[in-house]
């Protein structure tokens, strides 16, 4: 009798357990991909910085780097929205990845903001979205230690705030965000 009860119990539990396990595997896979894509974003950003220091004839390549980085950020945001639907908006890890990627794209857009005004608007939009994603967390995204190293030339950055300060772009971005809010 007891055996039958256990068997029936197992038959009821196994399908749910299998679904939960599958969902958990998918989440792990998504998280892994987000991290991989973020690494590619940083790699792409680092590469572009080297290039900015060295070369003059760079417009076509600058735009190409910008577009490439954008592809990766779009993919991250795509996975992030899927994750949000799957698990709600409480996942700080995923929000962190998405927010950082957006800030890197924002910085990339700023490189050509003087030549192309639309780029500045895009940069502001990304920056604003990144701040929104990380709203209400204990440490602001800008001051949080980065999970990887960002090398620009011979200088190492471990926080996004330092990167923004050093590039002297934070002021512009913050101002524009304030303008938008007003």
């Amino acid at each position, binding site marked *: 009798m007891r055996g039958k009860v256990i068997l029936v119990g197992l038959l009821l539990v196994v399908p749910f357990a299998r679904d939960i396990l599958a969902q958990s595997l998918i989440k792990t896979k998504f998280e892994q*991909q987000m991290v991989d894509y973020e690494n590619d974003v940083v790699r792409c950003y680092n*590469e572009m910085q080297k290039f900015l220091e060295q*070369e003059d*004839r760079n417009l*076509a*390549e600058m735009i*190409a780097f910008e577009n*490439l980085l954008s592809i990766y950020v779009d993919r991250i945001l795509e996975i992030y929205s899927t994750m949000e639907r799957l698990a709600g908006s409480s996942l700080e890890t995923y929000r962190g990845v998405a927010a950082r990627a957006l800030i890197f794209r924002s910085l990339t857009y700023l490189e050509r903001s003087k030549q192309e005004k639309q780029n500045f608007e895009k940069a502001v939009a990304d920056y604003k979205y990144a701040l929104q994603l990380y709203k209400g967390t204990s440490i602001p995204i800008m001051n949080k230690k980065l999970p990887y190293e960002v090398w620009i030339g011979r200088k190492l950055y471990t926080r996004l705030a330092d990167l923004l300060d050093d590039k002297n772009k934070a002021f512009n971005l913050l101002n524009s965000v304030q303008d938008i809010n007003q």
Partner: protein
Amino acid sequence: MKKFGLSLVIVYWISFVSLGFGQDVRTLYDKVRKEYEANNFATVVNLCKQIIERCEQNYPDAECRYTDVMKNVYRYKGFSEFRIYTQEQNMDQLEEAINSLIKSYELYGDPEISFNYGYMQSLRAIKLKNGRDLDGLVNAWRGILGIYARDEWTVSNDLLNKLKIFIQQAVEISITPPDSALTTGRFTSFMIRLACDLAQKRTLSRDDSVFFNVYYRRAIDDEFNLRGNEWRARGFEAEQIFKANPYDSTYRICRGYLELALRFAKSTQRKAEMLKELTKVALYMEKEGRNSRRETELQYAREKASQAYTILQEHRSDIPRELENEIKKVYGNAIFRLVDYYFSITTSKDRMNSFLHARRIGEELLVPDGQGGLKQKFQWEGYEDLYLKLSDVGYELGDEKFAVDMVDKAWKAVLDINHIQLPQIYGPLPPQTAKELLQFAQVYQQIAERFGLQSVLHWLRPIIKTLSQKSFYTTKGGGY
């Protein structure tokens, strides 16, 4: 007349119907699929245009609202236009194909389509020699990432093939157009590294592993200078072909590639290497080439070798020892062969001029030795032969000081190379060495005789006698 007019209308109407005018979108779409499978690409394009026209009308058919239908209409149209382009090589067709596929991608976002129109955009950039157009690479990469995600982040065989195509196009764009630098090659180099990294995420066959490793290396060498690296690789490949078939055409191609590699070299080491390689091919052409212009090739070799040597002097710490030795060897060789050339072309009319010319060429490698004579700037494999040749030049010019100085240096050099002290000549000596030394001693004797250097002759006589005996035994029995 009326009958003729009526039949004309009927014929026109039949052709109108047969081409699909007046049919609904569903029927036309079914026809498109059938015609595409039958490889009737012109008909496919025509039918797709009709569907698009019908869908632009005020009251379009229901199918026009179905994304699945319309993305396929543009897809069939784009691929058919591309097939027509491959047959006719008409750039307008390629442009149409790209636009159709972009439209299809906008409707659905199929990564395969993104890869395909990216490929076509890169193809257009290559054909139009516009290396600045990098959109194709970006769009193809978007497609590759999409396919990778669609296949649950695994690299399928199909994706691997696409990565290979992508890499080859990236390389081609980085060297488009061949004679100018529209981009730095940094972006293409980065893309190739990304592509190779993605390919490495699966287990690769031996050939594939070699393919991706080679391209990865080419991308990172010489400060990520893909443009320069690619010309270098093509240059070396062309050099092999040239050596197997030393004709003017193969020589020109090889030299052209190597010159481009030199032009786009970023590091001093690469510049020196390319100059050395250019010297080598010019020397080879002079020696083995069919109908080569000897003097031109030798002068070219001398010029390139001299430039390589200047780089070596200015950036010695950047140049590895092996390359340094090779540069010295080719420079020495170029000078030796040019001296030999002017020495051997003398005619009775301008004998002295040719000898003087040969001497001036040789002096390029000579510096004061601090004892009133001259010595070569550096030692290279075969430097004793240059001394010997210059002593011949001095002999012919009647310049006693120069001739004696050179032959004395040649004699000391040949002893030094063979690691022989003078007294050892009278002891056991390898036969080949004896033969080589004898040649030098005889020239020394000739010069001493011409300028009446009795003490030298007195000193040389026993040496020549011994060396003759030792080399004579060589030819007779091989013992010594």
